[in-house]
């Protein structure tokens, strides 16, 4: 009995103190959750929605569509223009180039590993790759395409008609299926065998000594794991870490146009429209002022191929990023006005050697060779437009036994006359 009582009281004490301990921890650092340990990329967590199961044929079709500029406004930019395989499937400049005649206002993220995200875009504004496709293809400073024209273009490309039919079983390509195919392709762009992943799966030689030391710092002194945790190195939560506005906002007229357009288009009060000078980020999700300047934690995978860093590309190298955190983050308009800089960030006091180790660890999260290096080397050949066959005619009343296509001078035209209704 004594032992059972003791066990009971121990259990009760444990049960009471555990949540308190967790709470104390979260209050102390501003993150309410326990941090999942970093781990090898878990391919079983790759999204594969029930209404859009990835198949090789679908991914192959999606690959062609990804590279096809006809899925945009003036048929000059494709997904691959800004998510360029050669630039780590991202765009190699601070801020994305955007649609011709415009510029984007944020840094372009890589599409590699994005099948693991539950919140896409820097502000986490989209829950699936399928819906992300349209935000990009239709946005005024991105693809500026319109669904009706894009779908009509697909219908005029026989190879696509064939492939869409095979993959989706519909007689003609439908624009929703374009997004499904591209999303399926993007889900095949994964980098699961980085030195870090190999190390975690048991190959102790896969990581350098420096990288191993860096991992210790990552989990400990530098406390990166507070937000960049789990197998995908992100908690997908929102923080304001104090990244400042990019110089482009003050230096480029074109950039100022896009800046105002975005804050206008995303629905800002007039006062904000008149006075904002920096991107309020995740604020637009719920229009909660406390969210201004917050961004969804991005993954750290594939970093090596995807500089510059941060939502506006203000850090050009990993060393700059490490320095930024070593200084306890930065300050921006919103840390001052909303006072919402995350309390997780503190000066780290890393030595130069430690910084080097941390960078070595971060670099171990990317493979040496790019994902789908074949597509990095050369773009696929795209199928061509072709006129539709003229042997299909609209249902007409049976009396319509007249030569239908003709020139006014009496010559019969290239088009055949209609003789049978509803053929």
């Amino acid at each position: 009995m004594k032992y059972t009582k003791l066990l009971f009281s121990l259990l009760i004490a444990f049960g009471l103190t555990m949540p308190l301990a967790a709470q104390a921890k979260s209050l102390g650092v501003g993150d309410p959750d326990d941090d999942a340990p970093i781990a090898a990329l878990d391919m079983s967590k790759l999204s594969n929605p029930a209404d859009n199961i990835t198949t090789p044929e679908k991914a192959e079709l999606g690959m062609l569509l990804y590279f096809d500029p006809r899925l945009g406004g003036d048929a000059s930019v494709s997904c691959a223009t800004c998510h360029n395989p050669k630039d780590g499937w991202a765009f190699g400049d601070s801020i994305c180039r955007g649609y011709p005649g415009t510029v984007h206002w944020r840094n372009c993220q890589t599409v590699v590993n994005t099948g693991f995200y539950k919140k896409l875009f820097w502000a986490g504004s989209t829950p699936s790759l399928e819906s992300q496709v349209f935000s990009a293809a239709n946005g005024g400073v991105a693809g500026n395409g319109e669904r009706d024209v894009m779908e009509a273009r697909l219908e005029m490309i026989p190879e696509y008609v064939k492939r869409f039919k095979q993959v989706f079983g519909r007689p003609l390509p439908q624009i929703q299926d374009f997004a499904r195919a591209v999303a399926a392709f993007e889900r095949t762009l994964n980098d699961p065998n980085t030195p870090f992943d190999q190390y975690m799966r048991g190959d102790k030689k896969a990581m350098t000594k420096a990288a191993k030391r860096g991992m210790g710092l990552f989990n400990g002194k530098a406390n990166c794991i507070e937000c960049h945790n789990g197998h995908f190195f992100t908690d997908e939560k929102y923080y304001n870490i104090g990244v400042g506005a990019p110089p482009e906002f003050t230096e480029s007229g074109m950039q100022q146009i896009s800046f105002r357009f975005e804050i206008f288009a995303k629905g800002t009060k007039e006062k904000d429209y008149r006075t904002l000078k920096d991107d309020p980020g995740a604020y637009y999700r719920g229009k909660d002022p406390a969210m201004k300047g917050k961004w969804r934690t991005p993954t750290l995978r594939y970093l090596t191929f995807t500089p510059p860093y941060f939502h506006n590309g203000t850090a050009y190298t990993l060393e700059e990023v490490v320095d930024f955190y070593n200084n306890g983050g930065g300050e921006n308009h919103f840390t001052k006005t909303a006072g919402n800089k995350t309390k997780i960030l503190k000066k780290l006091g890393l030595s130069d050697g430690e910084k080097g180790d941390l960078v070595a660890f971060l670099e171990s999260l990317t493979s040496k060779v790019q994902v789908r290096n074949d597509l990095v080397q050369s773009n696929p050949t795209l199928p061509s437009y072709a006129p539709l066959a003229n042997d299909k005619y609209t249902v007409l009343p049976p009396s319509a036994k007249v030569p239908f296509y003709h020139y006014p001078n009496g010559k019969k035209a290239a088009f055949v006359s209609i003789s049978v209704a509803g053929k």
Partner: protein
Amino acid sequence: MMKKKPVEENMKKLFWVPLMLAFVVGTTATAWAAPDIGPLPTIKYDKKKAALGKRLFYDPKLSGDAAISCASCHIAGKGFAEGVDLGKAYPGTKHFRNAPTLINTAQKKKAGIPWFWDGRIGTNLNDVTRNEIVETIVLNMDMRIMQERLKQQPDYVKMFKDVGFSEPSNGAVRKLIPEFLKSLQSKNVPFDQGKLSKSAKKGMKLFKGKANCIACHNGSMFSDGKAHILGVAENPKIFKDPLRHVTMKASNKFLGVQNQHNLRFDVGAHSVSKMADGSDYRSFMTPTLRELRDTAPYMHNGMLASLDDVINFYNNGGGIDPNKDRALKKLGLTKSEKGNLKAFLLSLSGDKLTGSKYVVSKKEIMNMMQPYKAIPNWHNTKN
């Protein structure tokens, strides 16, 4: 005995009178109800606003990729039409219809002539302007970007203020371009001035009589504002060039036209009236005849290259279509009658609108094409 017929029976007879009248009126309406042709009323407009509207009309900043402007397809020297059978449309596409003249277009309001070949938009020029700026196959512009582009250019900011707008805006553009459109009015038209040649006078008689053009081309705008089926041949370019077929398909998708993939003709105003039996297929709005001297080729798809072709087309009773308008009959015009009709049609065109009021100067183009500059002291300037 007759006088003793019950009153009810007489009432029954009377009941049929209006119905019969309605029937008679309905069947012969086009023949006798046509409003007479006549000179155009003058439309008042704000000259300062029209001048700014002109500049916007010519500015490629009003298109998605800043490559084309309204003036790309509505060319002053071509009577503010395009001078080709089928329009250019937005880069990456080609249009499937002919770009009509914009001269006198503001008159459509009073005349009640809806816009576009299928009449799908009313006569409000503000609506029309918005439609053409945002239309994917025309300027494909997100007007919120357009607004910010204009705000980035100091001379525009000043010009908008000068005409009474607090700043360049989406709404202001939709008021200014219509003001320029109102300024596009025919000038010194022989018909309006009553200065018809002998031949043209004879042509007018034919127009109203033997040729019966007036059945549809009536009123001061020479249009009844209705859609008719003439049997104009399809323009084969649409079906041979996938980029043109794309715009036709996209338009049909957008307007909810059934069976779009199998169509090998332009449905025309069916996109609005949507008769289930397709009896409105290939019907198109009666266009104005004013300023047609400069707006060849003719018809909704530019299939008739010259006025002579047009006259021959009608002389043959139009083209071939199972649902062709019954008003079209072989006219049996002699060669000289055709000449007279042509003379009359040409008398409906006035001076070319190619002066500085209608066309931008080199200086204006230079101003328009300046690269965007960053706003100085941006952080302390209101957006």
